[in-house]
């Protein structure tokens, strides 16, 4: 494993398997009466969240606590950031306080990489701008492997606002790395122009894709990141790309429905669809804790320094 987790490109296919296998053991810890192990006792993990988040922050917090690490939650409101402190000064402060790992979410792509220049501990990217969200991709892989038994040659469609989705990027890279077949589906305005270079297929017609899938992965329409009009209306988007009950009936038997959350019920996914038995959206959340425990354990459980040398 690398010292940091900034992008799926930092993780080899072999390491992906290692993370998923380690997460398997942590899933077991989550079923115990005492859901806590002393593996990272005495380590400090800082959650540095410059963007709103519920599940990712809580998931990282629970993961670190279940490993017995000390957790500090740092959000921009109510902190010195609201007084104008820069990322650098915040980083140096956390460094001076002895953070062993910093989990960062930021609206600017690349900020986790920048952070690695200022701190000695491991940096984990919890979502940066429209760049990547590697822990989400790994928990999605875990959920697919758990439910379907494999990743190789899985047929996965990632549907919706791919352009603004760091989840779609990380997940595409990870799935392609593990030998799955990925199709991106959305209106042409919301498909990144460089998508073919990711090793994925592109389609603008959801109805032709659905009958051939093992996994149907819906993305949220990220209105907060959209700086122009990408489609005429939400209603039209929902009609052309929303996962309705009628569309679900065209999915093959046993195909999974996934969504990284938070969902816009009635826009990209019908409310009834989100609650179907083959919708594994809640599994994704549960597995997220195990995956983040595995990552924190693998990144902090050794003494490897930046150069790959053992200290």
């Amino acid at each position, binding site marked *: *494993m690398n010292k940091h987790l900034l992008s799926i490109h930092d993780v080899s296919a072999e390491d992906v398997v290692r993370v998923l*296998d*380690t997460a*398997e*053991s942590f899933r*077991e*810890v989550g079923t*115990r*009466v*005492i859901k*806590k*192990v*002393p*593996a*990272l006792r005495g*380590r400090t993990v800082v959650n540095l969240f410059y963007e709103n988040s519920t599940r990712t922050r809580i998931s990282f917090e629970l993961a670190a606590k279940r*490993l017995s690490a000390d957790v500090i939650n740092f959000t921009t409101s109510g902190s010195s950031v609201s007084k104008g402190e820069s990322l650098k000064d915040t980083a140096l402060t956390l460094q001076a306080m002895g953070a062993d790992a910093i989990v960062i979410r930021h609206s600017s792509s690349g900020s986790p990489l920048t952070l690695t220049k200022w701190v000695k501990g491991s940096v984990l990217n919890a979502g940066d701008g429209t760049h990547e969200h590697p822990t989400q991709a790994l928990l999605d892989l875990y959920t697919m492997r758990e439910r379907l038994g494999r990743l190789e040659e899985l047929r996965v469609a990632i549907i919706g606002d791919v352009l603004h989705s760091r989840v779609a990027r990380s997940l595409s890279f990870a799935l392609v790395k593990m030998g799955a077949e990925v199709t991106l589906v959305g209106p042409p305005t919301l498909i990144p122009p460089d998508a073919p270079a990711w090793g994925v297929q592109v389609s603008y017609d959801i109805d032709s894709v659905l009958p051939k899938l093992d996994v149907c992965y819906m993305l949220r329409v990220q209105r907060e990141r959209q700086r122009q009009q990408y489609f005429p209306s939400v209603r039209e988007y929902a009609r052309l790309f929303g996962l309705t009950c009628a569309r679900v009936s065209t999915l093959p038997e046993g195909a999974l429905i996934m969504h990284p959350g938070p969902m816009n019920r009635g826009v990209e996914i019908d409310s009834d669809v989100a609650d179907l038995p083959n919708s594994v959206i809640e599994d994704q959340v549960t597995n997220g804790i195990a995956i983040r425990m595995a990552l924190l*354990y*693998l*990144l*902090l*459980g*050794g*003494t*490897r320094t930046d150069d790959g040398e*053992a200290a």
Partner: protein
Amino acid sequence: MPVIGARLMEESEIRRAVSRIAHEILERNKGAGGVALVGIAARGDDLARRLAAEIQRIEGAAVPVGVLDITFYRDDIGMRAEAPEVHETRIDFDITGRTVVLVDDVLFTGRTIRAALDALVDFGRPTAIQLAVLVDRGHRELPIRADFVGKNVPTRKDEQVRVALKELDGEDAVEVEEPVTASGGGG
């Protein structure tokens, strides 16, 4: 592969040792009632299953068998270059109120057992915890002793004791090896 040193136990000796330990567990606990076996991964779990089969043969009673991975409880996490590899833990029964016999292949420094004791109490409150090992090689660093021992083997501290079991290694044998590197060795 490092140079293989002296053989300490042959297949037949391991079989007899397991059989004797099974008898001793039954004798000590006055039967199999309330007894559960928990093997420490890897190889302790295989030994635990063998002991359970032997107890079944002798007493006609089925004792529950669990697997315990002690990785998360080790006292040297963060002191090695890589985080130690994690194995499976599976204890499908409630250990509270039972006599748990911990089973491991080699008893050495006692640190693995210390970690296992910590791990076990996170699963419940056993009436008693006993310890069965195939080989006790001495050199304890903690005040821990085994209740049931297959064979006591005097070793040098830098030697390595290797236990091979059919389930994992294709053969049954205990061997002592000259040191090759500073790492490894049974706990």
